[in-house]
């Protein structure tokens, strides 16, 4: 685990070491050590208010920790200036819980937003990249979808447009913030499939923040549990089930998603 800090590591794309963050007197992260594997689906589970979102915001440099380090491809992103952070942010795409599409822009403008803000590309190239994504995410079979505004889209479509926007700048890492919250079981399954397929088709490293146990064990290559500001369990789903932490059990069991056979 200690190999490769400070240099690009072939297996681990993101390495978090001793991350601490407080807001006022409230300690949210109390020394998080966690690695995310390149090209895999990494899931962080935990109850509400355990610091999952705060951890995610640190990954994109939206929050600065009180102490600790975050290495992305071996580069420590803590304490970088605005310009350097913006460069690191280009490696990331973020898929928000409720898509967070811009109400005032149509589908094409929403998806093209990162390209327009970051580069000076010819209009035709932007449009080409947007249309390519619409095709690959099965959004092009809806008539007139390009000109539609977010309010005219269904929840599932909004999610896919949000994914397209996150993918348009060809990120290496995709962050999903509770992607299945508030969805019915069928929609949840579709989103799970979407995450898996995206990981395979686009070859990205996925980091998913979730409290949906069924999804987690269905799509996760690696699962970590954040509890009270620290990581209490980390490994493949099989490893986690083989030696369950009582706190993990307490969290996972009520959902009925997985069974701990070894336990009475």
């Amino acid at each position, binding site marked *: 685990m200690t190999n490769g800090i400070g240099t690009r590591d072939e297996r681990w794309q993101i390495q978090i070491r001793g991350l601490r963050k407080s807001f006022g007197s409230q300690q949210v992260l109390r020394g998080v050590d966690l690695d995310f594997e390149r090209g895999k689906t990494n899931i962080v589970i935990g109850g509400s208010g355990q610091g999952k979102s705060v951890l995610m915001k640190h990954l994109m440099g939206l929050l600065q920790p009180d102490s600790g380090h975050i290495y992305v491809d071996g580069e420590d992103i803590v304490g970088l200036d605005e310009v350097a952070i*913006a460069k690191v*942010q280009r490696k990331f795409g973020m898929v*928000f819980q409720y898509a967070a599409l811009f*109400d005032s822009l149509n589908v094409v403008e929403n998806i093209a937003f990162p390209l327009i803000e970051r580069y000076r590309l010819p209009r035709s190239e932007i449009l080409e990249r947007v249309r390519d994504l619409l095709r690959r995410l099965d959004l092009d079979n809806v008539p007139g979808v390009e000109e539609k505004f977010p309010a005219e889209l269904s929840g599932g479509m909004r999610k896919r447009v949000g994914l397209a926007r996150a993918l348009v700048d060809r990120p290496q890492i995709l962050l999903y913030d509770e992607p299945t919250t508030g969805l019915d079981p069928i929609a949840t399954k579709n989103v799970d499939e979407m995450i898996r397929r995206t990981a395979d088709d686009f070859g990205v490293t996925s980091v998913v923040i979730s409290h949906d146990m069924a999804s987690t064990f269905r799509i996760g290559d690696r699962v970590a549990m954040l509890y009270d500001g620290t990581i209490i369990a980390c490994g493949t789903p099989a490893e986690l089930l083989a030696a369950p932490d009582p706190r993990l059990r307490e969290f996972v069991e009520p959902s009925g998603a997985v069974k701990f056979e070894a336990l009475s």
Partner: protein
Amino acid sequence: MSDTAPTQPSSGAQEFSPAHVGRLAGRLFGPLLGAVAIFGQHMLLLVRAFTWLFRRPFRMRLFLEQMEFIGVGSLPIIMLVGFFSGAVTALQGITALAMFDQQRWVGYAVGVSLARELAPVFTALMITARAGSAMATELGSMRITEQIDALTTFAVNPVHYLVTPRVVASILMLPVMTMVFNALGLLGGYVISILVYQIDLGQVLELFRHWVDPVDYVQGLIKAVIFGIAMALAACYQGFNVRGGAKEVGRATTAAVVSSSVSVLILDYFLIEIMNVIWPSHGM
């Protein structure tokens, strides 16, 4: 209520320790300090909005969109209110002036009240109601649906993208709308005094031309600029700082309209005082 201090067993005696004084001061000045802090946060937002104005990229489209919304969008209501304000002022003016048989002064009365007071203040209040409330709602819902967070993930500063265009558009469009209000107000005054009350147009025009000064309009336009800043800041500040859900967006909208309207009226008073110093002959 919470005065049960456990460190003071002898509760009978009336003592004034520094702690008492501190608590009393806190109770007296607490709300005042809160108000000062909020004022400071508004000013900070204003400074940030202006700093970003000079940084790339310049998104012309956003500025034009806001100018269209604040200006063109408010045109019908401003014209309507302007016309009737002028008409009402003329009507009241004629009633008062008739006591001295001096109705020909109505042109001056309407012109100067519009230029200095009615046009800038009513324009600011109408645009607050129409555009200020919409700004607070829009930014508030963008906040709760994480659109503002999404901006930052694309390395776009939300103040640069959202607040600066709104503040600048308000500063530019409020004076324009104030002049529209003035023009329609004069038309309203004309309809009442010349067409309805048949006052001699030559005399009215002559007195208007002679006594209404360009400085009156300059004063009105300076007010309009400052009201524009106050309106946009109140709306953006409230919208930007929404936390929670849809209910909070509604609360923020109400707060934006109330604080903008109140600050327009309070600022109006202080601006008159300041302008009376700058243009003493123009005071009273």
